């Protein structure tokens, strides 16, 4: 099934609750409102002929100018051989969204990573802790305006430029 058909199916099911569809790009995607994400995902997973059993990837992009953090879901169906990309815009100050862990178990770890590196909070997540960084790390590094703390645990995170080091 091509992306426009999938979008038509979603429009029929959730009249007016699914956002815009962008089909004239390399990888067509559709925007979903944060409040509908679990319903839309459940329909995509269980709907007849949709069968998106796999959440291939889940990640985020920071857009400081637009004041938003965008979540990106890549879904794939091994049965139907089709894919769709979902995008959800969240506010940058207080990014919150419901977890899709109940639909795909792998979301547990994907969401932990997004929480760790972007600071997005997933409501209903069973184990929302940092995953790659230490638990007492400050800030979320993949945000564009991230400034690294000067030291961690008494160890400096700064390094003198190589040339200066050689001159010393």
């Amino acid at each position, binding site marked *: 099934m091509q992306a426009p058909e999938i979008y038509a199916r979603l429009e029929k099911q959730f009249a007016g609750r699914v956002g815009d569809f962008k089909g004239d790009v390399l990888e067509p995607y559709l925007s979903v409102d944060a409040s509908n994400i679990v319903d839309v995902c459940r329909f995509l997973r269980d709907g007849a002929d949709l069968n998106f059993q796999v959440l291939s990837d889940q990640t985020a992009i920071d857009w400081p100018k637009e004041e938003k953090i965008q979540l990106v879901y890549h879904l794939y169906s091994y049965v139907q051989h089709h894919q769709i990309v979902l995008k959800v815009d969240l506010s940058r100050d207080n990014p919150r969204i419901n977890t899709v862990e109940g639909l795909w178990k792998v979301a547990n*770890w994907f969401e932990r990573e997004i929480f760790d590196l972007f600071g997005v909070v997933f409501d209903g997540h069973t184990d929302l802790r940092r995953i790659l960084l230490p638990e007492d790390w400050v800030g979320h590094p993949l945000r564009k305006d991230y400034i690294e703390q000067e030291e961690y645990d008494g160890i400096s995170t700064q390094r003198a430029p190589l040339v200066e080091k050689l001159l010393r």
Partner: protein
Amino acid sequence: MEQTAQDQSTGLYTEDMTLSVGPQHPSTHGVLRFVVKTDGEVISEALPDVGYLHRSIEKIGEKVTWHGYVPYTDRADYLAAMFANQAFCMAAEKLAGTEVTRRGEFCRVIACELNRLASHLISVGTFGQDIGAMTPFVHALRERETINNLMEEICGARLTYNYVRIGGVGYDILPETCARILEFLDHFEPIVDEFNRLLSGNKIFIERLAGVAVISKEEALSYNLVGPNLRACGIKWDIRRDIPYSVYPELEFDVPIGTGQVGVVGDSYDRYWVRIRELHESCNILRQCLKMMPKGPAIAKVARKFRPPVGECYARVEAPRGDMGFYVLSDGSEYPYRVRIRTGSYTAMSIIDKLSKGIMVADLVALIGSLDVDAPEIDR
């Protein structure tokens, strides 16, 4: 420690033991740690603790140019660097609409399949070592050494290749090297049978793995297992075949899946056995490529200041540890706006906690080894 059960005859309480496996432990294949709760030999919980090798490769992607990022992708998974190279270049090419030369595509496939052999050899070799068979590991490494030599001939590096470039490959594969690859294949294919006699058919090895840590199809999909781990559950899914890229559609190869030949479909032995059979398939692909490789330039003309148009794309390749996906975003500048690397080990790691409930401590080692997780690929 928490009290769990009271012994009826003595009236004494037994306690759960919390054990830290790793970060430096031979069975963890790199630096990762498990916090294991056990009642005697039986595990009730094994929480993975990852991140020891986090090098922020995704963040670095936002700071270097498109061409300049290729060597960094090597470090995502150092056992299969070629695949990360290729996935990133594929994403960049798709975004910019760059055509890859035909010879370049063949060079890529040859280099990738050689790399797959090397990576699978490490995987099955260390797996044997985890279970207690030391000798096969040495045999596997000996063969890998020859592959490393071949790689050095192809691109000058033995581990982090930086071989695939946007538009093709860095250096052409010379006819002498092609001859040496063929020579190696003739030598290597009987070695796989020897390996089977040594390890795969070994009674102790089979009994340690058959029926251990079985993954069902539903679990595999829900946890998004990919690559050999997914195929071992009986799902015939290979990106080379199902989302074809490069010249794979022109090549003939089989996709081995788990059949549960010594135990149940999706057990640890199936995961091992799929990899062994993939060794044969890779040799098969290599032979076809060497025969079909056309003459021509190895790399297309690509602007030195590579600036793909605004847009985004997701490219995936079938790496030894499964679906390796690069999601790249361009804002039209010389630097990527965002690079996201999706790796097979990350998702495979997330299933370990689920599978480890109720198994023995020794089986945890078998489980980690059979999933072939690679710490640098998890942490990136």
